[in-house]
């Protein structure tokens, strides 16, 4: 198939970027979206131009490294897939495809389609863990966990940290990401002990990183490649209120 591509090019964080038009012919319908970009890059290099920089790694939808706005939708129009899993058979010959980076204040652009998502790591540092030192764990079957809870926790834990939720949100909110991690840990008995400190710490960090608030639009869940449910945001809010009543505040932590 033959395509018209409009791709965001930006040399670095300091320079202005712009959309650049490319024509790309001979794309196999069986290739993935990133393989389509590989083809473009091979052609650009051969023509002596700089290839388009984009983040990617596992190319099987689990590492969370890739992500771009494809025709205005994070990871493209297919539900529940990452950019690397999106295949060209879902486009038509002659289509124009607009490709842009995630756009959010807390995700500054590094180059072309690559953004800095280290804010997510810092949110995890603020409580996205269970404080258990290696070697101190009791036998794995000492703490039974109901299958329902374990399954729900797993639903939340499936988050790959790609940042699509932030990119899709008109407020650039990181609530779905943060809530998913809080739910993963707070739903389990192992996570119970630190549950309030966790929610308070992570929410505070999320705010200082410059992510916006949630206004229940739901675009985050709609684009999430792992279909993480918005319900977890409600759970986070509920845990947060309970923590406030329990007198746990960020400053205290």
């Amino acid at each position, binding site marked *: 198939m033959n395509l018209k591509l409009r791709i965001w090019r930006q040399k670095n964080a300091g320079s202005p970027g712009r959309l650049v038009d490319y024509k790309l012919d001979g794309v196999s319908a069986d290739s993935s979206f990133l393989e389509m970009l590989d083809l473009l890059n091979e052609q650009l290099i051969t023509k002596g131009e700089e290839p388009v920089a984009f983040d990617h790694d596992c190319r099987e939808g689990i590492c969370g490294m890739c992500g771009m706005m494809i025709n205005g939708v994070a990871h493209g129009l297919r539900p529940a897939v990452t950019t690397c899993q999106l295949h060209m058979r879902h486009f038509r010959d002659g289509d124009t495809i607009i490709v842009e980076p995630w756009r959010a204040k807390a995700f500054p652009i590094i180059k072309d389609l690559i953004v800095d998502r280290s804010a997510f790591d810092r949110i995890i540092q603020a409580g996205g863990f269970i404080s258990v030192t290696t070697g101190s764990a009791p036998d*794995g079957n000492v703490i039974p966990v109901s299958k329902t809870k374990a399954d729900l926790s797993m639903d939340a834990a499936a988050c790959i940290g790609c940042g699509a939720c932030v990119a899709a949100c008109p407020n650039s909110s990181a609530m779905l990401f943060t809530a998913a991690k809080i739910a993963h840990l707070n739903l389990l008995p192992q996570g119970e002990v630190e549950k309030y400190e966790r929610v308070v710490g992570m929410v505070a960090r999320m705010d200082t990183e410059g992510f916006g608030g949630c206004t229940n639009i739901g675009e985050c869940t709609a684009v999430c490649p792992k279909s993480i449910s918005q319900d977890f945001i409600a759970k986070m809010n509920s845990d947060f209120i309970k923590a406030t009543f329990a007198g746990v505040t960020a400053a205290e932590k």
Partner: protein
Amino acid sequence: MATNTQPVAVKLNAAVPEGPIQEKWDRHRFQMKLVNPANRRKYNVIIVGSGLAGASAAATLAEQGYNVECFCYQDSPRRAHSVAAQGGINAAKNYRNDGDSIYRLFYDTVKGGDYRAREANVYRLAQVSVNIIDQCVAQGVPFAREYGGLLDTRSFGGAQVARTFYARGQTGQQLLLGAYQALERQIGLGQVKMYSRAEMLDVVVIDGRARGIVVRDMATGKIRSHLGDAVVLATGGYSNVFYLSTNAKGCNATAVWRAYKRGAVFANPCFTQIHPTCIPPAGEHQSKLTLMSESLRNDGRVWAPRKKGDNRNPRDIPESDRNYYLEERYPAFGNLVPRDIASRAAKVVVDDGYGVGELKNGVYLDFADAIQRLGKKIIQERYGNLFDMYMEITGEDAYNVPMRIYPALHYTMGGLWVDYNLMSNIPGLFVIGEANFSDHGANRLGASALMQGLADGYFILPYTLGNYLADTKADKVDHNHAAFKDTEAEVTEQITRLLKIKGKRTVDSIHRELGEVMWNNCGMGRNEAGLKEALAKIPAIRAEFWENVDVPGESQDLNQSLEKAGRVADFIELAELVCRDALHRRESCGAHFREEYQTEEGEAQRDDENFTYAAAWQFSGDGNEPILHKEPLTFEYVKLSQRSYK
């Protein structure tokens, strides 16, 4: 790079402790020296890689009080390729009461590795496997549970007990997130300094000891060095030497290769594992291969048509025209034979012209029986995400038509040689996880990579590294030491050289060419003529690369072409060593199948008399043949026998 390094005499001492195998590790733990908790903060430990091995080691050493610097090439440590492991993690918990034990896991692993692993290491691995599960549960890894709330397990290839713990089809992701979260906690506490988008390009050796690394900041292109009292490589395997593999695109061998060129010996490079259940390539554009978890073989039945070129819809092919070749040939293990056996059987079927799919390059993995027996819902619960993934990639619905699968490069058992303490022959240079030559011998069993990565990182290295530090009096060095300056200069020079070539070929096109040679001549089946042909072709590819590659862009910038070029330059050199090792090992064992050496039934024929050793290769200068060292393997507990899964 390192062209002036004179090969120093290498004496391989595996340093296996005395005593019965069950007691070796316990005794050793007592005998090892300790670093006083107050003194640990005076030590700086460098860890390269943030996968299961790297992240677990970084977190644990930081918890113990060491200063840790951790490096990864991704934008976050959470993305290391351990994340992609699907099926599960083995542990000898025997929660099922089905006859499992530490000894049995040890036995299965040695046998599965076709008797080419070090017994003492494997026994220790089986021992600590039980602690790993405990640790991960405590961290909040949401393992699959039974209705009573206890941990669920399933069976996996090469074992007759159900000892594999799992978290849906995302076990690697969940275990990695556990280790990543422990690591982030230590970063938050200031005990670990994390460097993301940072690629290690060389190791600095002073007075024979590893004292630091040289790193390129991938966002800015800046070269800088880092000092360490010990350096730990947890940089994964080198499957991408084959270009197409199930590894992430960024997985590379540069760290281990540069260490090799600084004197670390490389063991069993030809032990490369092919995973039997991957989605077959769809065409020229293919950039990587996607694995479908081995756990699928629990419920899926592998078959191919009995008639060559049978183009019928698989649902229209009657039972009598289907060849369930694994079940027929291996009635005891059936579809659950080890990976090497399942892979070779698929190759034979496809090579003989029974392949399926448009390119006739696959076999079927059929769930129709399982769906009929258990219902679609249960299959969906067990493998839903895999079926979805298959659908996205191929456009086919595996609930209705059988999956098409074919083997692909997946894991490398070979790697830098390490002793019982996981230290290479360069003192102070430790190698853990897939990067070392590992406990898996010539073939790794499914769900054992996660086990080994976490065993090394959580429970072995934190002891042995402390022992090294306590036992070592090294001079203080700083960045101005000539070795740091020289190594930085060499790294910079190579980058300048790559950017100057300005030839006509892209890095990818040369990498693809290398991969084709490797897959055709050093893949699932190998023979002398083919390996010799590869050894003639690879130097030509290397010459073509250094004369005709085109690396656009600048060094002081985010430059993905430059990153790839450096990695491919190393892959080309490594490819030669892989072929050389494969040529020298005139036997078949595990994943290394030399067509000249097979039993009448077409199984791998080992030559225990001549090859019961780990082959450790030493770099002896560019253009010189590497020097072969042998670590003899002795088997006191597991009797050497012809593997049989019939």
